[in-house]
């Protein structure tokens, strides 16, 4: 068991024993390889079930929305930024959440690991320092961990929690090493027709399960526009315009709020890269408004306020 897991269990146990919180929201060991499960520990004994691995790929801020009581939550950089966003958007009360901050090792992409073993059944995967050990019924192989991180983790700008009540382990390197502005660059070089063609190719396999929306801590509308039926904005079938409308509008609703946590891509059962859209939107927000979501509790989100200095105000 890794040291962070041990520290996490101890912290959770202490908070629950002292009655500081009603619940600690973290992860527990998943039942299948490469997937941990969001977990809600209510007792010091249950705190012993918490784990922290590279397969903790959801965004736990999501579970704070609409939740009663006082909750502690495990938060690396992106998750803490989303919590800050939810506090700013009046979805979470700062006094009701106890943030257990930590440094993200860069989460892993199970799809990339699976792709190394076509037609072979993987039965167990564990991390061993800088390596990943992959086991099947008749094989065991070691992979270099840094090659199998999720795409968003390579361009992470805040790996340490930015807002926390206590911090587990040591603060680590703040960035993933990659240039986040470059993620959007391939799109910028394309003309509109090419962009559309690429967008179509990427999003056409969507099965409309809405896992991307439902794992996202930004998507907390009481009624999502695709679920509205009076009037109905969007058809329910597999017609491409309806699929595309969902993804484009959802991306726009997230502009200036997305922390690039990657939960949507990790959740998507068909492997759609939603960051194709959000990377460009967030780059625009950085460049036009000099703003990055969730770094503090004070700066208003740029698209939620009007200012005469707004870059898009007609001169």
């Amino acid at each position, binding site marked *: 068991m890794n040291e962070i897991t041990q520290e996490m269990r101890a912290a959770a146990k202490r908070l629950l024993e002292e009655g500081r919180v009603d619940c600690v929201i973290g992860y527990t060991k998943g039942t*299948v390889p490469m997937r941990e499960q*969001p977990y809600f520990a209510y007792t010091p004994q249950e705190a012993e079930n918490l784990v922290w691995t590279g397969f903790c790929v959801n965004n736990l801020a999501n579970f704070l929305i609409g939740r009663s009581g006082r909750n502690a939550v495990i938060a690396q950089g992106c998750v803490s930024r989303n919590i800050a966003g939810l506090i700013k958007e009046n979805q979470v009360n700062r006094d009701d959440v106890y943030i257990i901050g930590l440094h993200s090792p860069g989460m892993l992409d199970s*799809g990339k690991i699976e792709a190394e073993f076509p037609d072979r*059944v993987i*039965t167990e995967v564990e991390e061993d320092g800088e390596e990943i050990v992959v086991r099947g019924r008749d094989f065991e192989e070691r992979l270099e961990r840094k090659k199998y991180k999720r795409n968003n983790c390579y361009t992470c700008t805040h790996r340490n929690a930015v807002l926390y009540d206590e911090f587990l382990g040591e603060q680590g390197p703040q960035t993933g090493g990659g240039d986040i502005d470059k993620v959007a660059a391939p799109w910028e070089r394309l003309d509109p027709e090419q962009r559309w063609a690429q967008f179509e190719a990427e999003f056409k396999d969507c099965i409309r399960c809405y896992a991307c929306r439902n*794992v996202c801590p930004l998507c907390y509308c009481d009624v999502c526009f695709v*679920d509205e039926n009076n009037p109905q904005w969007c058809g*329910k079938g*597999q017609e491409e315009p309806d699929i595309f409308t969902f993804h484009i509008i959802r991306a726009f609703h997230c502009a200036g709020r997305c922390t690039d946590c990657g939960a949507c891509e*990790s959740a998507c059962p068909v492997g759609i890269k939603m960051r194709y859209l959000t990377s460009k939107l967030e780059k625009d927000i950085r460049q036009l408004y000099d703003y990055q979501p969730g770094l503090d509790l004070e700066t208003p989100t740029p698209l939620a306020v009007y200012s005469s200095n707004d870059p898009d105000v007609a001169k």
Partner: protein
Amino acid sequence: MADKRIDKADFHKLLEKLAAEHEVFAPVRDGASMVWSRVSPEQEIEFEFTNTDSSPKGYLFPQTERLMRFKNDSSDPQGMIMEEEPGISGKQLLLNIRPCDAKAFSILDHIFERDERTMDVYWKDKRDNTVLVGLACKDPCPTCFCTSVECGPHSEEGLDVLLVDLGDRLLVRPLTDTGKSLTADLDQAEPGDTEEAAKQKDAAEAAITQGITMENIRARNVLEEYEHPCFDRIFESCINCGTCTFYCPTCHCFDIQDETQEDLGKRIRVWDTCMSWLFTQHTSGHNPRGGKKDRVRQRFMHKFKYMPDKFGVIGCVGCGRCTSKCPVNIDVRSVVNSMDEQIGE
């Protein structure tokens, strides 16, 4: 019916025969995953795979299916009259369908072909015109548990023919008259082939180590099971997306929508999901399954309590897709085993 055999090198001959009378679909490789696709007689057929990502239920129950069309113009005498969709034009054949996915169709017959009065004509049309040639499972996934839900890696239920991969050749087991006529030209299997297939069946069944138990679920009455305390925790990590229901080969709930564009309209049915709050929302504003717990409970109660009680079949074939695809690792096996636990201990 007696077992037959065919060398893999000669498989294209059988495929040609199948393709002469049917539109043939089979699992094909697409990057890292296996997908269902139309195959041509000269195409190389895959025999080495676990299972397809998606179930083939869409061939009988498409995610979006047009039921009728109409002219959206009440001033036209021909307007607003629903015009029936023509049925499937020929016969289709699903080649190398896994036994679990084939059995799922038999389970769905209980829903869509329950009786003459409620016959689902859209399902029945495709069902009657679909031939199923299965491929037995050699290497079950860690999420598979077919053996504990009245199915198995060599289950024959619902299939016209079962193929068993014996390396350079296939054992071909006709199971229906259709299967018999399609395989009539093939050589009789050697006794050794049938024995080898039986050994493979035992090995595949033994490879499935995690299952479910349902004794207590079966014994309890519905309300007792409904109030099982396990439901107080199971839903917590669920995000209420539709992934499990859309990948499930036996989930069959749908929504009906009228869509119009200018003066043309159509009535479609689309897969729906009980995980969505909208699924049960009434026009009055009341929602009988208003909370996440209610919705998660519904999915498991439906498959493992209501369907066994009502139809005598478990609404699950143990393919494990819901578990392997779930973004938050809700494992159907753990859920059902929790539902089966003693209450009050």
